[in-house]
């Protein structure tokens, strides 16, 4: 510097400031450049950006299959796959929220059917209804009315269901269960006694439990048990704020979980659902209550349906189908709206759903996809889907708005620790007062 008056500290601080200014200057230039490209890039057609959280094995392949069908129909369109990894879409939803608020929506995005879309982006007038596409494609005769109701509000349809997962399923290690001569439980009481028998026969933690990533797995236990104790109508009422969470049916549901917890692994906060599946495969656990994405996980690990593992509706929910449904919607201001409409048609088509669902491990939302494409358990679920009472899942965003569902996550995390039925029920009711009454 040639200036002996500069102390070292001054030099450091000034150098720091210069560097800081340079950095800011640079990033501002980048920022301008980025603005430039994004605006100039929009005018050209022939692009389609699809946003999802399908990055896992199976689901990623299913998405690729649908892209193939789309490309066959619209060969000139280049698809951008903007998938964001992260369990149950937690990260993807944050990214999507930023883009939607910023007026830069993807052309179409994955969203759980129902409240997750309706209470947020539909209410904020950021979505375009797809009623006309629904009608012109004749989906009324192909997709069950219960399901259409879940994706509709105020007389309009807002998104296209691609697949249906079942949230209320009990998976079991078939060989192990048979060897201990225990039957798959039908009711919640059966479940408690099966767990205690298995423990007496040397399996210390017969119930595999995962709660990593925000306790949504435990929330599924709760909603399945509420469905078991209260039935479909009570379930729908309590999830829409018309019935109270302090009702004895809810405390019954919580009590069942409390009774099962001593039979579950204590490290649930460190494992996710797929690691809980591994406990079944390893034979350290026998049961896992989880959505039917567990099936895709088992088969990918070379476990054979109805030989190595079996499935029944979760305890006490026979005849009811907990819907976890992925859909695609049409955001207002999509840059390539016409291409997105084409995408929605592929999503709702027989061909699209036949290609996607066997890979994903779900069943099609349409009832006319040939059952022969699917494994035995999926065929069983497809048959039940046609006759069962369909109810929307709260843990997966269909029955309740995200602020409620996320609050329930927290409460279930607390419940795992304090096992306090009364307090949890009253806290759930507080969440209902705050978030369900206004919805």
């Amino acid at each position: 510097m040639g200036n002996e008056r500069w102390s070292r500290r001054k030099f450091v601080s000034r150098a720091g400031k210069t560097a800081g200014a340079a950095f800011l200057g640079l990033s501002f230039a980048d920022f301008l450049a980025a603005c430039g490209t994004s605006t100039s890039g929009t005018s050209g057609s022939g692009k389609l950006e699809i946003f999802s959280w399908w990055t896992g094995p199976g689901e990623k392949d299913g998405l690729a299959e649908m892209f193939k069908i789309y490309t066959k129909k619209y060969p000139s369109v280049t698809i951008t796959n903007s998938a964001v990894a992260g369990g149950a879409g937690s990260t993807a939803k944050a990214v999507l929220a930023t883009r939607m608020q910023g007026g830069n929506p993807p052309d179409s995005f994955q969203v759980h059917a129902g409240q997750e879309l309706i209470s947020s982006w539909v209410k904020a007038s950021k979505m375009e209804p797809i009623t006309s596409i629904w009608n012109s494609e004749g989906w009324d005769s192909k997709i069950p009315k219960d399901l259409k109701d879940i994706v509709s509000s105020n007389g309009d349809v807002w998104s296209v269901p691609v697949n249906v997962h079942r949230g209320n399923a009990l998976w079991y290690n078939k060989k192990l269960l048979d060897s201990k001569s225990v039957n798959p439980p039908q009711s919640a009481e059966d479940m408690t006694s099966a767990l205690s028998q298995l423990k007496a026969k040397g399996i210390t933690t017969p119930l595999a439990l995962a709660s990593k990533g925000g306790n949504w797995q435990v929330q599924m236990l709760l909603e399945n048990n509420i469905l078991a104790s209260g039935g479909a109508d009570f379930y729908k009422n309590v999830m829409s704020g018309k019935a109270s969470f302090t009702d004895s049916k809810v405390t019954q549901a919580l009590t069942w979980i409390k009774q099962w917890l001593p039979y579950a692994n204590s490290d649930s906060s460190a494992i996710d659902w797929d690691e809980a599946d591994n406990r079944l495969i390893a034979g350290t656990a026998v049961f896992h209550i989880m959505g039917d994405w567990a099936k895709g996980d088992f088969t990918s690990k070379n476990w054979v349906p109805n030989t190595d593992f079996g499935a029944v509706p979760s305890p006490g929910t026979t005849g009811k189908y907990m819907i976890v449904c992925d859909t695609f919607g049409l955001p207002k201001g999509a840059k390539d709206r016409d291409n997105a409409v084409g995408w929605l048609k592929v999503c709702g088509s027989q061909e699209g759903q036949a290609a996607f669902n066997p890979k994903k491990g779900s069943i099609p939302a349409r009832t006319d996809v040939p059952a022969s494409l699917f494994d035995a358990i999926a065929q069983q679920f497809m048959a039940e889907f046609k006759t069962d009472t369909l109810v929307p899942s709260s843990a997966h965003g269909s029955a309740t708005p995200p602020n409620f569902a996320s609050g329930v996550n927290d409460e279930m995390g607390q419940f795992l620790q304090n096992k306090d039925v009364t307090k949890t029920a009253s806290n759930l009711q507080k969440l209902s007062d705050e978030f369900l009454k206004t919805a």
Partner: protein
Amino acid sequence: MATASAQRVVVERLPKSRSLRLPPWEKITPLLLVSPSVILIAVFVYGFIGATIRTSLVRWNSALPDYTFVGLHNYQRLFQLERFQADLVNTVHFTAIFLAGCIVLGLGTAVLLDQRLRGTLFFQNVYMYPLALSFVVTGTVWRWILNPNSGVNVILDNLHLGFLKSGWLTDTHTALNSLGIAAVWQMSGFCMAMFLAGLRGIPEELREAARVDGANEWQLFWRITFPLLRPITLSAVIILGHISLKIFDLVYVMTFGGPGYATDMPSLYMWVATFAQFLYSRGAAIAVVLLLMVAVLIVPYLVWNLRGETEQ
């Protein structure tokens, strides 16, 4: 740059009327040079802080922006929440573990490395390397190490030390301390570097003089070295303290706040409230509380530092 500083030297030798002697462009150029950063900081830092404060005072609690003014209602609600109360306790607890761990380990290793033995340079680098990692990487690795079914528990089993096994991150009583282990592992090297620089800056004459006066090595450390390291310790507390208050990435990767609220932090809840629950006003209120917490720590330090600089 060279001409500018040369100019300065001249100017500083003629202190009588330097502002008058400067040609007009000389007065404008510095302003022009700093103005981009001043404007950018004004907008992107202070403007956004203002926008956050505003958001925290309205009723924007869904995807649809709602700018109805509700005063301090969001703050009132926030402090009633069990989760946020747990967050505040956790932050204080975590900060205490983190600061104590980093300073004790950092000072300890620095004193050892200051002995100028063979190989100190090697260890100096070894202890510094964790600092080069991001908290996300550290968190992922430590999550594996502390997984109760693999990692450290298995090692303990093999060493027949099974009684030392713990649920680590899965047990409400140990989770926050386990998180602290990972954080200390990452940042104690940084603390060591600061203390080492401080130790090397203490003139040997002072210690010699104390030795002549008959002080033993223990007294030497506590009476001479440690007091002289006070400015370094203070800087370490400030720097580590504000990292600790804002900790997000490590918690997000290692525990996501669980089990229960055992390791939840205000920054994580801020993210969840804003992006998972769409409670934008609540998220903003948490951000403001965080800002105030950090300000309580930083502002006195900045004032102290600034005073020191003007006195020079």
